[in-house]
């Protein structure tokens, strides 16, 4: 019996190849260009370790903020119908569309001394320009749509009937959320945090406007590239990719389906 060749499927595969190559080839080239000695040397550099740690820390902080404030918003968007909902949805998606330096400029103009909010923050001792606070603010801004849209889809996938049954059994809306909805949406929430963290770690355009220092890894890579060239920026890039990969694999591992999905 001969092998059936499905022309359509092969055509799809062939047409997919250029995009896969576009992602894989440059990254492979970059990862394998630095020697082990280059990588080890860059790891001895406190600036490299510090910026990667700062990038991870600020991205995770942004994901945590999205978790705390974005989860209720995602639930509202998934479950409730209200006038102007499509406007709110458009607002949530705005950060995806706006050029990222513009986001940095917008945050700065709000947090500057010329704006009441900026003056209020200053009075409270909160500085945005050139601080971790500013970095976390812009990372939350750029990562938030990825978190909310992912978690909203997760909530939508949970049948409302489960919540109805829970309430008919005596649980309040709040108890229903924490005993039924949240545990069932947990994997979507983790996926949302992964998406948000990934987007935040890679952010450069908005961060460089708000805070060149303290330096994050993308800013350091940019600086090394402009000051010393390609060769010096590559080891930092490889470490950033490696650490991010470990983080995301770990997050996915902890949010994998449990036995109840059998």
């Amino acid at each position, binding site marked *: 019996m001969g092998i059936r060749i499905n022309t359509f499927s092969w055509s799809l595969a062939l047409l997919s190849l250029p995009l896969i190559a576009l992602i894989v080839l440059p990254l492979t080239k970059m990862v394998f260009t630095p020697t082990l000695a280059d990588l080890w040397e860059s790891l001895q550099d406190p600036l490299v370790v510090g910026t990667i740690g700062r990038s991870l820390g600020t991205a995770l902080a942004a994901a945590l903020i999205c978790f705390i404030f974005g989860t209720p918003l995602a639930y509202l968007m998934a479950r409730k119908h209200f006038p102007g909902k499509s406007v709110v949805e458009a607002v949530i998606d705005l950060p995806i569309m706006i050029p990222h330096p513009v986001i940095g400029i917008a945050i700065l103009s709000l947090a500057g001394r010329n704006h009441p909010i900026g003056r209020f923050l200053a009075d409270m001792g909160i500085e945005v320009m050139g601080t971790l606070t500013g970095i976390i603010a812009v990372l939350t801004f750029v990562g938030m749509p990825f978190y909310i849209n992912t978690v909203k889809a997760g909530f939508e996938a949970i049948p409302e009937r489960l919540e*109805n*049954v*829970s*309430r008919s059994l005596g*649980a309040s809306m709040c108890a229903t959320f924490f005993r039924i909805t949240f545990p069932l949406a947990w994997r979507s929430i983790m996926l949302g945090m992964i998406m948000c963290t990934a987007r935040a770690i890679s952010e450069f355009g908005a961060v460089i406007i708000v805070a060149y220092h303290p330096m994050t890894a993308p800013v350091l890579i940019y600086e090394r590239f402009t000051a010393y060239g390609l060769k010096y920026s590559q080891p930092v890039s490889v470490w950033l990719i490696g650490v991010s990969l470990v983080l995301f694999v770990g997050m996915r591992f902890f949010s994998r389906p449990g036995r109840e999905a*059998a």
Partner: protein
Amino acid sequence: MIHIQNLHLSLPGFALKDINLDIETGDFFALIGPTGAGKSLILEAMLGMLPMDSGRILLEDRDITSVVPEKRGLGIVYQDYALFPHLNVRKNILYGIKYHNLDPNQVAEQFDFLVHQLGIAKLLHRYPGTLSGGEKQRVALARALILRPSALLLDEPLSALDPVLKEEIKDLLRTIHQELSMTIIMVSHSFSDVFYLANKVAILKDGRIRQQGSVNDVFEHPNSRFTAGFVGMRNILRAGIRDNRGLVEKLAITLPPGADSSGKYLAIRPEDICPLTSGHNGFENTFSGTITHIAHQGFYFDIWMTIEGVKFQAVWDKNYVLEHDIRPGKELEVGFYADKVRVLGQ
């Protein structure tokens, strides 16, 4: 007792209008109607899941119209069972216990009783994803019943089951109703299920109740063409009525005494149209008909025939059809009693 008074509820593209229901304690009440009639919406409104435009719901003389769902004391079992997938069977059944002030000993007793009555003792540590449809149904029933709700609402509990399992669950529902003296309100689109289980029924169409009453009364005395069709009267004929006779084209049908002369339609059940045999000699209506086609339905045959150009459908016993070589083109005498003919005004 549950009273639903003048319930109006609007959703985009659909509305429940003027719903009035009186359900006695211990009733097995069926809400039936075609898909999209609004049956399940009535259950959702009773549970408090949908905001009503107007009307009241009284549960044992307590107005629960504005009461939050968790305080209404009604249990629900959905067609898809809606078991919590992240909790095992035991945790599903005991989910609501912490919200009710129940004696732990009574809970344990009730749990053991239900688990054994419903045959799910061996499933307690399994997760819903590993259960069959029938097992899920039983767990969902146990979860609702352990709280002893004032009424149990069943949203199309039989429609997702295969025929064998369906009969099993029907028996189970009847046992639960009888042994626990539970008020049950069931949504269904099958009159045969309702006939087996319920004592009262309301028929809905397009968000309105078209007829309600005892199952036997609605079955025997439908008040409209729609209801007649829904309860299985497959012969609905436009007729002129004069001198207690209905004239369908050239066919004159003798009606029961005192038939409504303003009626416009006649309705006859297919099982009431019988072949004339030596034992049948009391029919007021006897005609010669020609079989047009027949369909084997397993235990019986659907028979289509024309009588003086008017089409009729009958249901005949399999053995009779095979023994008498009933086939398309055959002419034979058929008859039906006058009191089996319903006269409908609309």
